[in-house]
């Protein structure tokens, strides 16, 4: 289904939309306060951009260096060309260790590869341990946000889910009680787990180590208790040196939630005595995206979610309306590279206001890339008949100033004089969910001419 269709489902509950909008704007506001309190913030962003651009221009060699160091550290390294191969590799490692119970910390990559259903099909139990992820897992839904996976749910829905699945008492949605119950439930899972799966926030070429960031401590509880730790990373997660973490860790949490740093930034290098550590390096379309000069900067993304929190469309349409693992502005420039037809509506889910690019910690030109995808999509995928015809008509109209003036006059008169039932009728998609302004008597052209005349008469 297209973005507008899915968004209209989300928009049915107006109160929820308002709450969603405000909740995310509040996070964006916290990001602003946090960013503005850092001296040299813009220089940090420049450095983040520059280090990532350099990394992409030497990606193959950095991966080789990373692999060499990881192997020296006693970590086993695997390579997966696509999601299917990634799942097969993870499955094979788990089988080799006879692992049946698996705890997973948040990883958008494993979501992208649909790892859970793959493992569950073989009778394995996969528990998502980030609280937001656990909530959506119980609800059998995908995350709707990459940092706040259950942002679309209210506390009463969580209350009901926990009563049904964890046997909790009704608590009128008390977050403290619900979190406490989740802690007990998940602690049991951590203690029993045969293996832990985590994502990777940053992989460091010159040490062979990698960093995982969480606020809850779930990645560490999993990885240090289970005898096997599998870390899954996209090829673009590499940074050249450990000292570069100084730049990215300063940017990540401030951009994501406004915190000065995540509670836990864990640096894994060697397995702890008696346990095993595996890294799966995944391509899954990234090398393809690297080949597109206009779009390769999308691979700079450090998954902070700032572009989602600020996007006027995302806030009012919800993450699920994007029907993609990574929703929002960044997802709308990543997804068309994977499937132009399926995701053809996403680059149009934007006002092109540029707010996403303004907050991006690694300065991805998101809104220009959205614009560029639009050009490609319009040429390469079939467009609706009405849209095509109206664009043709508008093109002709704009080419003739006199005609444009006449149509403008009629439109302004109509907006002043016709009843609302006519103006907000079905053919006018602009009037779908809002009142249109009262048409001014003067056109911009008239106003401008008058202004220039006044200037002249004042000068004389």
């Amino acid at each position, binding site marked *: 289904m297209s973005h507008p269709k899915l968004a209209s489902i989300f928009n049915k509950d107006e109160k929820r939309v308002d709450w969603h909008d405000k*909740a995310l704007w509040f*996070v964006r506001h916290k990001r602003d306060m946090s960013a503005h309190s*850092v*001296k*040299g913030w813009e*220089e940090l962003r420049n450095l983040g951009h*520059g*280090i990532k651009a*350099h990394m*992409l*221009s*030497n*990606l*193959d060699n950095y991966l080789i260096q990373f692999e060499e160091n990881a192997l020296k550290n006693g970590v086993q390294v695997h*390579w997966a*060309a696509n999601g299917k191969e990634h799942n097969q590799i993870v499955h094979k490692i788990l089988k080799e260790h006879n692992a049946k119970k698996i705890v997973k910390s948040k990883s958008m990559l494993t979501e992208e590869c649909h790892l859970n259903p793959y493992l569950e099909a073989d009778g394995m139990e996969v528990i998502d341990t980030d*609280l937001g992820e656990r*909530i959506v897992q119980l609800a059998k839904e995908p995350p709707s946000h990459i940092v706040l996976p*259950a*942002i679309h749910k209210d*506390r009463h829905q*969580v209350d009901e889910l926990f009563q049904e699945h964890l046997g909790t008492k009704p608590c009128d949605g008390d*977050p*403290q009680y619900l*979190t406490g119950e989740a*802690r007990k439930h*998940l602690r049991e899972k*951590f*203690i029993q787990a045969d293996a832990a799966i985590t994502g990777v926030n940053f992989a460091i070429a010159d040490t062979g180590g990698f960093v995982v960031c969480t*606020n*809850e*401590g*779930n990645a*560490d*509880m999993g990885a*240090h*208790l289970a005898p096997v730790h599998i870390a899954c990373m996209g*090829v673009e997660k590499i940074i*050249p040196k*450990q*000292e570069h973490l*100084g*730049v990215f*860790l300063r940017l990540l949490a401030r951009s994501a939630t406004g*915190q*000065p*740093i*995540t*509670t*836990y*930034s*864990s*640096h894994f290098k*060697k*397995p*702890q005595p008696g346990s095993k550590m595996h890294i799966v390096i995944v*391509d899954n379309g990234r*090398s*393809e995206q690297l080949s597109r*000069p206009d779009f390769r900067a999308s691979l700079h993304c450090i998954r902070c979610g700032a572009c989602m929190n600020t996007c006027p469309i995302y806030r009012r349409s919800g993450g699920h309306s994007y029907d993609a693992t990574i929703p929002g502005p960044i997802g709308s420039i990543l997804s068309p590279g994977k499937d132009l037809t399926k995701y053809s509506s996403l680059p149009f889910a934007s006002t092109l206001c540029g707010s996403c690019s303004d907050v991006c910690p690694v300065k991805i030109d998101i809104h220009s890339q959205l614009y560029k995808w639009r050009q490609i999509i319009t040429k390469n995928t079939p467009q609706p008949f009405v849209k095509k015809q109206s664009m043709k008509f508008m093109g002709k109209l704009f080419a003739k100033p006199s005609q444009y003036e006449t149509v403008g006059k009629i439109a302004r008169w109509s907006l002043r004089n016709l009843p609302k039932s006519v103006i907000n009728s079905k053919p006018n998609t602009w009037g779908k969910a809002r009142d249109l302004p009262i048409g001014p008597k003067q056109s911009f052209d008239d106003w401008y001419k008058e202004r220039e005349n006044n200037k002249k008469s004042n000068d004389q």
Partner: protein
Amino acid sequence: MGSRESILAKLKANKPEAIDLPKIDLNVFNEDLDLIKEFTKKVEIVGGSVIEISNDEEVLTHLKKTFPNTKINFSNLDNTQSFNTIDLSTIKNPRNLEDLDVLVLESKIGVAENGAVWLDDNDIPIRVLPFITKHLAIVISKNNLVPYMHEAYKSLSNHNSSYGVFLSGPSKTADIEQSLVIGAHGALSLTVFLK
């Protein structure tokens, strides 16, 4: 051709022309922070508390007062046999630490800009300790505070640890309707002792 080779070949063919690695000029960030004041402020912002002390004994006195009836305690400070109720060398499986109540560790780096302290396996005898404990206390010398993450990584370049963590505050979550709750999977409280 295996996936490793095919991925690397594709990346090599598709990558742009070499782009230089930017140089990091630390002067851009310098604002002459009062390290103790800034560090204390940030630890409190992230939900922890800071107590200034003059010797290690005050740590244990304070903890015994705050958590009077705890059964399982461990500290890696010197001369704390009276406090410790477990012997880590007898712990064969990290899962057996499930009931740990209070843990005291020492850190060698604290970061003023975000209140984070660094712990690595030289400070943590068993990796899961600072996460599985109910209450965590960290002791750090005022002389070991640095202003920003950049300086922290500079001092880490001499360390060669197989695991380490920047830890900032107690475990927390805001996944239920954006309400902040302290104590998700990790420690329920964090006290930093500055000496």
